[in-house]
C-alpha cells in the first residue's frame, strides 16, 4: 500500500503511457529525506523530469517496441543499510533492472559492493567517493567525477598562483574530501609548494577558532577549506575574525544564500571555490538553461547545481538501451554504456575520454571551474586545468 502511494505520486508527474506502448520501470535509490536530501531529492526530481521528457518525445525505441519510462523512487536516507534495502526491494520485488540516483557516498558504496552479482545496471550520480569506480564493476557507471580529479586541478591552479605554503582545514573524516586534499597536495608539491598543516573538523563543529588559531600561528601563504557548506561558512567568517588575511580557497559548492546566512558578504569577499563546473546560470550551456527553466517550472524550485548528474544518467541510459537493442539483457546495456558517446541532451559539460562519455572504469569527467566571491555573488572566473585522460589512466591503476 505504502509503495503505491509513492509510486503514484511520481507516476502523476510523468506522462501517462500510451496503451500500445510497453512500460519500462526504472528505479531511483536516493536520499529523499534527511540530511542528504539536499542532494538526493533534486536528483530524484531530475530523473523524473528526464523520464517525462523522454516519454513526451516518443519513449525509448528498441527494435519495433517503444518503451515508456516509469520511475519508482525509494528513500535511502543516505544510509548504507537503507540503500541496500531499497535496491534489494527494487530488484527482488519490483523487478527493476536499471537503478539511478545515488547522491551520497556511504549508501552508494554499500550498493556498489553487491551490484556486480545482480542482473541490473547501476548509474551513480553525485556520490564523489573515488573507490566506487576503482573496482571496474562492469554494470556500474558514474556521472560525477571523483573528488581527487577535481583536487588535482585545484592544486595545479593554486600552485600557479604562486602559493608555496598552504594550510588545510577540512572535513577530513569524509573520504572524498580527504582524497581531494591528497590530490591537491601532490600537484602543489610538484610545483615546489607544501601543505603546512592539515586540520580537521566534524560535521557538527561550528567553532573552528581553535584550528584557525593554530593555522594563524603557522603563517601560511593561503588556506584551503574543504567540507560541507554549513561548517565551511563559519571557517571563512572566523578566519576574518581572527585576522587571517591570506587568500582563501575552498571546495564547498555552496550557494550564495547558504554562505550569507553565516557570514557577511565583506567577510566572504575574494574567497575562491574550486569545484566541478556543474550547473550555474553564469556558465550554463543552452541545455543547462533549458534544464533550469523546465525543472523550475515542473517542481516550483530551482534545481540544485549537482542535480543534472542524475538527469544526464537518464539520457545515457536511454541511448545505451537503444544502442544495445534490448531492455532485457542488462549485460549488453552495461557494455553499451561504456561505449557511449556523450548524448546531445546532457546538461553537464563532459570531457570524453577516447570520445566516450564513460571510461573503462565506468567513470565520466566534467570540466572543473574556479569561482570567486565578488560583491555578494559566485563569479565564474576560468576553467581549471583538468586532464581527464591522464586521470582516467591513473584511476585504472588503483584497485
Amino acid at each position, binding site marked *: 500500500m505504502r509503495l503505491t502511494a509513492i509510486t503514484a505520486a511520481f507516476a502523476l508527474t510523468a506522462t501517462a503511457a500510451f496503451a500500445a506502448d510497453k512500460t519500462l520501470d526504472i528505479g531511483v535509490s536516493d536520499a529523499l529525506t534527511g540530511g542528504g536530501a539536499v542532494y538526493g531529492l533534486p536528483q530524484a526530481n531530475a530523473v523524473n523530469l528526464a523520464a517525462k521528457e523522454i516519454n513526451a518525445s516518443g519513449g525509448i525505441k528498441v527494435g519495433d517496441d517503444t518503451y515508456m519510462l516509469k520511475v519508482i523512487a525509494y528513500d535511502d536516507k543516505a544510509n548504507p543499510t537503507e540503500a541496500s534495502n531499497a535496491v534489494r526491494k527494487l530488484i527482488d520485488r519490483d523487478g527493476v533492472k536499471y537503478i539511478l540516483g545515488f547522491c551520497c557516498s556511504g549508501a552508494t558504496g554499500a550498493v556498489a559492493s553487491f551490484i556486480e552479482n545482480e542482473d541490473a545496471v547501476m548509474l551513480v550520480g553525485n556520490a564523489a567517493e573515488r573507490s566506487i569506480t576503482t573496482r571496474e564493476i562492469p554494470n556500474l557507471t558514474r556521472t560525477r567525477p571523483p573528488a581527487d580529479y577535481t583536487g588535482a586541478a585545484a592544486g595545479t591552479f593554486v600552485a600557479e598562483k604562486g602559493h608555496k605554503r598552504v594550510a588545510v582545514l577540512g572535513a577530513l573524516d569524509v573520504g572524498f574530501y580527504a582524497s581531494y586534499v591528497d590530490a591537491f597536495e601532490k600537484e602543489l608539491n610538484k610545483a615546489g609548494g607544501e601543505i603546512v598543516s592539515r586540520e580537521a573538523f566534524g560535521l557538527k563543529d*561550528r567553532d573552528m*577558532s*581553535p584550528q584557525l*588559531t*593554530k593555522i594563524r600561528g603557522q603563517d601560511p601563504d593561503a588556506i584551503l577549506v574543504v567540507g560541507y557548506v554549513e561548517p565551511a561558512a563559519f571557517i571563512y567568517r572566523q578566519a576574518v575574525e581572527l585576522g587571517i588575511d591570506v587568500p582563501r580557497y575552498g571546495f564547498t559548492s555552496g550557494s550564495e544564500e547558504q554562505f550569507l546566512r553565516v557570514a557577511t558578504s565583506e567577510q566572504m569577499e575574494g574567497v575562491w571555490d574550486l569545484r566541478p563546473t556543474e550547473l550555474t546560470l553564469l556558465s550554463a550551456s543552452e541545455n543547462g538553461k533549458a534544464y533550469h527553466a523546465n525543472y523550475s517550472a515542473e517542481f516550483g524550485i530551482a534545481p540544485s547545481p549537482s542535480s543534472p548528474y542524475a538527469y544526464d544518467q537518464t539520457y545515457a541510459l536511454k541511448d545505451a538501451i537503444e544502442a544495445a537493442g534490448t531492455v532485457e539483457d542488462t549485460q549488453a546495456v552495461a557494455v553499451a554504456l561504456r561505449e557511449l558517446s556523450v548524448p546531445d541532451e546532457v546538461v553537464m559539460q563532459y570531457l570524453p575520454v577516447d570520445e566516450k562519455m564513460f571510461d573503462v572504469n565506468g567513470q565520466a569527467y566534467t570540466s572543473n571551474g574556479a569561482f570567486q566571491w565578488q560583491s555578494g555573488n559566485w563569479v565564474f572566473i576560468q576553467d581549471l586545468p583538468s586532464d581527464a585522460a591522464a586521470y582516467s589512466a591513473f584511476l585504472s591503476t588503483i584497485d
Partner: protein
Amino acid sequence: MVEVIQQIINGVAIGGVYVLIALGLTTVFGILGIAHFAHGSVSMFGGYLTFFFVTGWGFSLLLAILVSLLVGMVLGVLIELLAYRPVRDANHINAFIVALGLTMMVEGLNLEFFGHEQVVIPTNLSRVFNIGGVTIPELRLYVIIAAALLVLAMTLFVEKTKTGQAIRAVAENRDAAILMGVNVNTIPLVVFAISTALGVCAGVMVGSLFAIAPGIGEGLVVKGFAVLILGGLGSIPGAVVGGLVLGITEALAAGFISSAYKDVIAFVVMISVLLFRPQGLMGKA
C-alpha cells in the same frame, strides 16, 4: 604565548555554553534524580524559536529571547507534568527511557518545524576587538558576559530567595524537606522552568554565535553531562569549573594535539576523572 591565550579565549566562549547547559542538568539531577537527556534538544528548540521570532515575525532580538524564555519555561513545566511525573515512583531507569523518548520527539519536532538546514540567529554584531594580537569578536565577548551574569543570577536565586532555599532543602534531604512543609509537587515544576530557561539562553547563544542544526542539541547534552562528571554533581561551582575546563581542554586539544580527535581527548579526560576522582573536580569525597 599569544597562541595559548587565544586558544583559552576560544575555549571560554563554548565553555560558557557548556556551563549553562550543565547548570540546567545539575539542578534537575540534584533535586529530582532525573538524567534529563532531552535538555539539549529542548534548549535548541528555544534557540529555533528565537530565530523564528526574529526572522519570521520581525521581533527585536531582546523581545524574541523573552518570548522564547516564556515558551520554554511552559514547555519545561509540561515535560515534568506529563512525562516525568507519571514515572516518578518507578525504577529510575524508566525516567531515563522517558528522557530518551522525549529527546527523539523534540528532535523530530525541531526537524519538522525548522528543517535540516542550519539556522543562524541574526545579530548584526560583527566588530572584532584586538588586544595585543589576541582577537575576540564582539559577539563572543557578549556571550561570555551573559553566561557569567546568568551564573551569578542563578547563585543569588538559590542562595537568597525562599524558593531557592526550598530547592536546596529538597536536594539535600527530600524527606526532611517534606516534613518542613516544602511542597514537593510544585518544586519540580519550578526546577524545570528554571532549568529550561537556562537551556533556552544557551540555545540562543549557540544559535547566534554558531548555528542550530539537527543533532547539535544531543551533542551539547552529552557535553553537559561530561561537565557534571568533571565538576561533580549537584553544585553550581562544579558546573562552572567543569564547563570551563571542558571548553578550554577542547580548544587546547584541537590547537595543540589533534583537531580530528578533540572529542576523543575530552572523553579520555572524562574517563580519567571517573577513575581517579569519581566525585568530580569540585565534589566532596
